[in-house]
């Protein structure tokens, strides 16, 4: 397991570097929330989820939905690395073609379009209900941002999933505490996130979202939890791993310039 953990940490490091390079190359994009969620996606795509990148329509695959759809630097990095589409295509990020600024449903590995916050959990729950109807054992993972929890529709979906006892649905909150305008707590406080979900009938697990073993354990606990959906509240740092980006709202949706990229990649490589 030690070697596996090291491998996952290295994957997360490469996803962070790739995310920054994509935003830099495009001259726009969302690095902050990509860096905060890199460890979570590394565990999901390289360790936990069941999928076949060569058969993106495989009916029994686990589903992943990036409800915080602006973090395509991270999503496209992991999907291309996992083999859903050629890495060379990353050169077209935010240019004509399939790699639109927010997830494009025509891109293999993208289960649904997102980009308008607050929609992914309902869609994921619909997929979970279909799985139960079809007696399939796939699981559905929905990654939400903490700012996104200010959208009321998230809580409609939260009510539905516990009402239907959809234990094949796992929500993961990338709780980086920073939104576009300000710190989430200043904008409109959402804590206590885990207690809110518990009150809505969910099993809640709170972890350090940068600790790979904790992410693995939480996903396994979610899979073992029966009769209710599970939320993993992953406390993270926006811009994680890059000193000048960490906890800075201004790095929500801004691309690094040449110099900033060099410094950021250097810090990540030496971390």
């Amino acid at each position, binding site marked *: 397991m030690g070697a596996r953990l090291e491998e996952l940490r290295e994957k997360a490091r490469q996803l962070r570097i790739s995310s920054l390079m994509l935003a830099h190359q495009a001259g726009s994009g969302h690095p902050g929330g990509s860096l905060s969620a890199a460890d979570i996606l590394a565990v999901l795509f390289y360790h936990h989820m069941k999928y076949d990148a060569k058969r993106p329509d495989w*009916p029994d695959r686990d589903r992943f939905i990036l409800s915080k759809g602006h973090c395509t630097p991270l999503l496209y990095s992991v999907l291309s690395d996992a083999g859903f589409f050629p890495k060379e295509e990353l050169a077209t990020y935010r240019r004509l073609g399939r790699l639109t600024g927010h997830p494009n*449903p025509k891109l293999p590995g993208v*289960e*649904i*379009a*997102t*980009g*308008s916050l*607050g*929609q*992914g*959990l*309902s*869609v*994921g*729950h*619909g*997929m*979970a*209900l*279909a*799985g139960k*109807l*079809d007696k399939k054992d796939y699981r559905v993972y929905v990654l939400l941002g903490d700012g996104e929890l200010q959208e*009321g*529709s998230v809580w*409609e*979906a939260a*009510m*539905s999933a516990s*009402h*239907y006892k959809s234990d094949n649905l796992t929500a993961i909150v990338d709780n980086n505490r920073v939104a576009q305008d300000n710190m989430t707590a200043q904008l409109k406080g959402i804590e206590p996130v885990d207690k809110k979900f518990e009150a809505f009938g969910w099993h809640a697990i709170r972890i350090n979202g940068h600790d790979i073993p904790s992410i693995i354990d939480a996903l396994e606990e979610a899979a073992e939890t029966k009769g209710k959906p599970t939320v993993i509240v992953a406390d993270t740092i926006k811009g994680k791993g890059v000193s000048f980006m960490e906890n800075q709202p201004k790095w929500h949706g801004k691309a690094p310039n040449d110099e900033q990229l060099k410094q950021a990649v250097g810090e990540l490589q030496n971390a």
Partner: protein
Amino acid sequence: MPKAGTRDGYANGLLKLGSDSRVVVLDAGVSDSTRTQKFGEKYPERFFNMGISEQDMVGTAAGLAKCGKIAFATSFAPFLMGRTQDHQLVSVCYSEANVKLVGTHNGLAVGEDGPTAQSPNDIAMARAMPTMIVICPVDAVEAEKATIFLAEKHKGPAYLRLGRPDVETLYDDSYNFELGKASFLKNGKDGAIIACGVMVYESLKAAEKLGQEGIGVSVINMSSIKPIDREAIRKAAGTGAIVTAEDHNIYGGLGSAVAEVIAEEGLDVEFKIIGIKDRFAESDTQEVLFRKYGLDAEAIAAAVKKAVGH
């Protein structure tokens, strides 16, 4: 023929589709009124009452559809269409999810519940939604046929606009619903009324009244609003006068759709739109509201007379 609501036709269509295990029906807590309850009683495992949360219902329908289901998401037209526009755009249409939005209780015909329940703008919203088709059946038979059509012959997003009132049944079971195809219920040479939904009945009354005055008009049921039947509009224009009639705002609905065709094709025709004149109504019976707000047969007949130059 007995009277029935288009919502009842929808329920019949769903029951006929019920043996197809891909068909799932969702409702937002008003299934007795929308009539989806009937499907729910027969196929409880494929009926999802999502409670009073339309946005969640539409998103859930999209998720089910992306797993191979044919999802009918149902509520009252104003709440279904107004409240969930963004979810329709992102989770349904852009995502190419096979979701049918079914809105009942449309227009002033809903009557006593008043302006917040009268959906004066649902056709406009649905027409502007990329890839979404829009159907407004006239009677229970057409509603049933359209429901079956949407499941069996149209893979993709649709808006089915249904009413509350029981209406005469115009078609019999031999009627075949075709997307983009209008039907001429009456033929006349002096003018044409193009209508949808409950306004078809007012148009038929108007045509009868006009006939007594020696003015012969066609009455066209334009149930397929998007795509629209351009050939039928060209034919109607041949009479020299077109009046459209809809229980909807005069902006963005059937009248606008017909006007677009007239303008694009440069058709030489007198043209009037009958609809809600960009204002809010109040509560009363359909009959009283239609009279006061200019949607009744009298208003249509007066517009036709103007258009034909009488």
